[in-house]
């Protein structure tokens, strides 16, 4: 057993609970809010060789533990850029990469750290409302600034070959009539060049995690049913996700990359005797 490095973790957590409106009477309207936010900064300070990056294992001094180190996609080579594209052994309609060291060729030195799986901050807000015998709560969670690699967009899954052999994701691909910078030109004769570069996505999201509505029957009514208390409620889990990956790229819930999240509806009774 050997220690092969050290890391540093710094962060803040903040939570705030407020009673926004206090009920003036037993049946009055009340509103309370819980808010929490946390932000973590993580960085590698030393590795087995000292302050030297371990590129093979994607560990870089001063960076978080999990980073994506890849060519950076700037866009798509457009009509009129034939000569420039050819200089980089590419062609119009193919992914245009950042020539980081500016030496006129694309090679391993042009890779950059694209992002990290670690979000800048995460948090949640719960709002609770009560009025008479009704109670309502809503939980919203959010996550900002992380990156993830989408399995849907990896050509190995045959969902993003842009070659016509397999059913493809419905993406905004380049054609001479559609000079987009999103995705390259489909090509029957092979997968697009540098297809890895368009598999990374912003993992930020805002999600309505839970909505719940309840009603407590009066004790009198409960007693008639030989119960101490009687409550009915309805709740829904994960009804809405707002994320660039979902909105712009037909993606699934970025909180659990790789599969769609389930929307769960619950109807319930709470009876205690």
């Amino acid at each position, binding site marked *: 057993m050997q220690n092969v490095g050290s890391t540093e973790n710094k962060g803040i957590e903040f939570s705030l609970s407020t009673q926004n409106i206090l009920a003036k009477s037993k049946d009055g309207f009340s509103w309370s809010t819980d808010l929490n936010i946390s932000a973590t900064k993580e960085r590698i300070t030393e590795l*087995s*060789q000292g302050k030297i990056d371990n590129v093979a294992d994607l560990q870089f001094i001063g960076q978080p533990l999990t980073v994506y180190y890849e060519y950076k996609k700037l866009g798509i080579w457009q009509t009129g850029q034939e000569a420039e594209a050819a200089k980089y052994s590419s062609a119009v309609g193919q992914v245009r990469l950042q020539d980081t060291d500016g030496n006129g060729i694309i090679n*391993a*030195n042009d890779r950059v750290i694209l992002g990290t799986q670690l979000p800048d901050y995460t948090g949640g807000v719960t709002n609770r409302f009560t009025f008479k015998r009704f109670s309502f709560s809503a939980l919203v969670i959010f996550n900002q600034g992380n990156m993830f690699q989408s399995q849907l967009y990896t050509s190995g899954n045959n969902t993003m070959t842009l070659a016509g052999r397999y059913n493809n994701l419905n993406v905004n691909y380049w054609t001479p009539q559609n000079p987009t910078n999103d995705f390259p030109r489909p090509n029957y004769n092979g997968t697009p060049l540098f297809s890895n570069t368009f598999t990374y996505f912003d993992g930020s999201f805002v999600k309505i995690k839970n909505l719940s509505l309840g009603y407590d029957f009066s004790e009198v009514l409960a007693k008639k049913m030989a119960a101490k208390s009687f409550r009915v409620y309805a709740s829904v889990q994960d009804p809405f996700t707002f994320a660039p990956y979902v909105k712009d790229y037909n993606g699934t819930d970025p909180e659990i990359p790789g599969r769609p999240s389930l929307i769960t509806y619950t109807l319930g009774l709470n009876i205690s005797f």
Partner: protein
Amino acid sequence: MKKIYLSLLLLIGIAFSACKKELIEDARSQVTDNYLSTPDGFQTGVNAAYSYMREFYGLEIGSNLSVQGTDEYTAGSGADRDFTTYTSNLGPTKGNLSTVWTNSYIGINTCNALINRAPDIDGIDATLKNTRVAEARFLRSQYYFLLVQMFGAVHLTTTETKGAVTTAARAPVADVYKLIIEDLDFAIANLPVTSNNYGRVIKPAAEHALAKVYLTRAGIANDAADYTKAAELAKSVINNYTYRLLDNFSDVFAQGTGERNNEVIFSIQYSSNVLTNGMGNKTHLYFQSAYDVQPGMQRDLANGRPFSRFRPTPYNANLVYNNVADGRSDKTFKRVYFCNRPGTYAINGRQVTLKLGDTAIYMPPFEMTAAQIAAKNYSVFPPSRVSDTMYPALTKFLDPTRRDSNDEPGYRDFILFRLGETYLIAAEALLMSGKPAEALPFINTLRRRAAKTGATATETAANKTAMEVTAAQLNIDFILDERMRELNGEHQRWYDLVRTKQLVNRVKLYNVLGAPNVKDFHMLRPIPQTQIDATDGGNSSFPQNPGY
């Protein structure tokens, strides 16, 4: 009645008491490092050293890195086309390249451990130990030979790796060949001529390997001495042992006991035993095209599961063979399929009823007119109509003994060295030494064997004569064509073209997909980026090959 019950009970009693009461478990979750230094462990280790050959020969990676992107095969519809198109996707991060790199070094390290530890292992017969070391050195030479042909200067190590190492360097190509030749010299001096364990490497196999190594090294600087050595070794394999060319070319690849025949010098072992077959020899999948979606056809064991990976170039399928006298084209490609799903189908613009066994598909190597095609009661694909989903299929790897037509693991041995190639090595080495007259008998013997069998003995004899060529016809282009005709699909082509420096020339001529992009620098594969990234100093201490 009672008595019967009683005796029955007694019987059961006896049966139970015969069982041992205690269960002795010998659970081993892990083999310790020390095991390799025991006689048993050493022998098991040698077996393991062979196994990495199966990570290449028999899987798609082996075909991708040998037949694709050549004048022999181009991409079928299911292929990873990067190996044919020579675009920048065939770069340092290409998966197959890091796989062959890593697996070869795992194989090399296993051999190094065996070779280093052997002197200190007691309790094993000295001759046997020597034989096993010779096997390990042969295998190490094969892993290095693969690497040096693909990547050029590679990291050279002859000691077992213990613990993490972060330094590596690209040893000169000459040093890599020096080690390969030392290893094969040792193997030739110490291996027996036969083995009662079929599949182990024997002396003639090491001679064939060394002949190929000299031939390849000779190509780098046109070295006359190397060509001479290659020719001598090849002649030794041809003359000094019991190998002979089989009378019928097809029999070389006949399945069953046929894979072990007088022409096979060394083959990678596969078997129908699921426990030992690993991933199996999957080559049967890759050369078949989608016959099973044509009218009157469905997938079956005899025709194979069509992965549509490798499609013969038009040059290979239609031009390189002389179909009048040469029987090998018909014995290499399946051009006719017979109906295995009877019914009535729309074929050539009309309804045709196909019975079981009727011709359903025909892919002639020549053009036919629209009127000729329309007159046929089956689907016709002349050269102008073949596509990357429908093309003549290479038959030599088919494996109809699998349990089900969809089974991927195959059982056949992968034939790596066979006498047919030894003849071609001898001929090429002699030709390149400026001795075409000496090369000629090897070519003509091989070509006479390949002659088409005629209806009469006279016709056969005429075909054999027609197959003969003259010394004046011999040149490196002829040798390359002959290698294509004889060794079609046998994982040789990319290396043949690189050795003879004909890769760019021939791909431009005969491979439409590869022609626009192929350049001189493609005669070496890119060093896997994973290796460069893992080396202290990165690209400055482990530089990438030029062009990538």
